[in-house]
């Protein structure tokens, strides 16, 4: 049955995401919240995350591009704190890790380090989005 095939695919993809460190335990917490009454909860939350995080990413980019004499690291840290919070709440492990690194540079006042790390953040962010999208597609097909 096709369903079985997709189910297997979905399960495999999911396992890989965990094994490769893209997702952590928190994602399972989300999955546990899914039930008949809320069949697409996880996908909906992830969609919400990507919408919301796009805004935060934009803000961080703007903040990083600030050329004024006195760079506001606190503000940068604030935005990143929000971004990290959202990322961790959906179980985005790699993103979270990069965010932590970013915050370390931020606390050290290392703008260059922040900028560099943020590229990593954005990369992980995009990668996960891709992977989750295909995963969700599989799960939908698997139903």
């Amino acid at each position, binding site marked *: 049955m096709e369903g079985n095939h997709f189910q297997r695919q979905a399960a495999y993809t999911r396992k890989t995401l965990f094994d490769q460190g893209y997702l952590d335990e928190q994602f399972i917490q989300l999955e546990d919240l899914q039930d008949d009454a809320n069949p697409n909860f996880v996908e909906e939350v992830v969609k919400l995350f990507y919408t919301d995080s796009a805004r935060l990413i934009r803000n961080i980019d703007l903040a990083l591009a600030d050329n004024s004499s006195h760079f506001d690291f606190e503000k940068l840290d604030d935005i990143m704190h*929000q971004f990290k919070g959202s990322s961790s709440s959906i179980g985005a492990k790699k993103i979270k890790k990069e965010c932590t690194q970013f915050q370390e540079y931020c606390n050290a006042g290392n703008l260059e380090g922040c900028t560099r790390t943020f590229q990593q953040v954005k990369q992980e962010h995009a990668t996960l989005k891709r992977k989750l999208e295909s995963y969700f597609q599989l799960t939908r097909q698997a139903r």
Partner: protein
Amino acid sequence: MNLGGSRAVNSLTIQSSSTTRRPGDGVVDPFPAGLRVLVVDDDLICLTILERMLQKCLYEVTIHNRAEAALELLRRDKTGFDIVLSDVHMPDMDGFKLLECVGLEMDLPVIMMSADDSKDVVMKGVTHGACDYLIKPIRIEALKNIWQHVVRKKKQDRKEMEFEQSGSVEDGEQQQNPLEDADYLSSPYEENRKNSNKRKDEKDEAEEMDDTSTLKKPRVVWSVELHQQFVTAVNQLGIDKAVPKKILELMNVPGLTRENVASHLQKYRLYLRRVSGVSQHQNGLNNSFMGPPDVTFGSISSLNGLGLQALAASGQIPPQSLSTIQAAALGRVAPLIDQRNIFSYENQKFRFGEGHQQLNDNSNQLKLLHGIPTNMEPKQLGTLHQSAETFGNMQVQSQSSQSGSLMTQLAQPLSRNKILNEIDGSHVSGLPSSFGQPILSQPMPSGILTQSRSEIDNVCGAVFSSVSHPSAAVELSMNPSVQMPGNRFAPISNPRMSALASKGMLQEEVKSGMKGSRAFLANYGVFTDLNQNGSRDWGLHNVGPTFEPTQHSNMSQQLNSSLADNIPRSKAQKLPDMGFQNTPFPEQFGQEDLMSAILEQQEGTGPVGSEFGFDGYHLDNLPV
């Protein structure tokens, strides 16, 4: 759950009920199902996830992504929720501020959440009275047991109530049947009460803080007027001798029961205790009763004008002015090195204990007040309040509307009114009305005191009251006009404002105070502001010379020095006109500024008020 379309970003309010209560089912106790949880978090993703998790725990969830809106909701219905979950970092309001407000006004358990797990932030949560602190990302397991905080709180409240009313034999209904422990939990569950079996009804009522009669009665709403009458009655009897029965008789309000009065009295006492922050009083009162502060009256464990904070919390008083005044007033009285104590309304005993200690420290000072009836103990709370009022009154002769000038800005939440009324009504006989905020008096010459006091009174009733005693003695020309019009604050009119306006400063002050403030624990925020922004133009120049003539050279000098520090950091805020109309002190001492100065002093030096030669209640220093 439909995530996408059904949400408005700006103020999400979603109620979801997933309880499985069945009306008519007299046997099953659904608790903790149906626990009414309010979640506040600016992060939409977290909010969504938490909502779903809490629903899964069978709680009744309401989510808000704006703290201000959430607070509004809570204010509209203080009994509408059982517990609040709040994020620490929010753009529109600091989570700790919200925490304090909720603790102060609604006396609900609050759980803080944050991705930040650093020790100091968690500690902050503790000191501000959070009953728990969850690290994000939050797991559902952590949420399953939040009901324990509701139960615990109810238990504490009950104990408090029982303690307070230990003298009243008739409070049979107060005797909680241990087997029925779970029942009191049902009281906040409005629905439960309606649907639950009769067996629970009585217990429900017994559990209620406000109404402990055995009969199911509508909750008594302590309106401003009612509270006024209450306070008047209490003052007439004397805070020590005020027993519910007599108060009830004096009040002579049809439909009011002794139980209503009793529970209200209990809260009032807690409030007074908290506000006074004077240990003497503590001793006089049931010291051992260190239960959770009475939210209604503003639960500030330290001396900080409870009323003020509550008022501030209600967004009514320009946070800055409030806090300043408060800080000044209270700070003096209770050298609070640890500001957190001052501002934390927490319901934790240890904090209350700290408050006690502080109070104790001040008691000595209080005793030093000459001319002041030192039997403040019994009446302290009441008198303190009153003194503030009377003081204010005195000056108010000319400015009757003063009482509320700043208050004018305030909305009228009941709590605030209550507090205000307390202050108003609490003129205690025997208190030289010339009590004012010592803090204010310190830097100000007596003449000024008069004026400032009235102003300050208006803003921080409670604060002043506590401080008032000491200063009163020394004061000035205040005639002890103990007539605190019960509704002094009621006529929050603008005459005062206009009077002040004539000086031009107060309004500035008020405005500045108003803006940017979240209206909540002003202290908390203000201190930060005061100390960090130095945004006031102390206009020292004004202060200096004016003080001289008023014989308070000590103070003026001291004040000058303290003020001087602030000058460089001025931010176009002049010292607001304190409304001194007849004072030789024409310059405005912005309440905020004064407070700031005082606060700065306070923080800078261990002993409070030393700079000004005012140490707590050492009025000796005040040249009369």
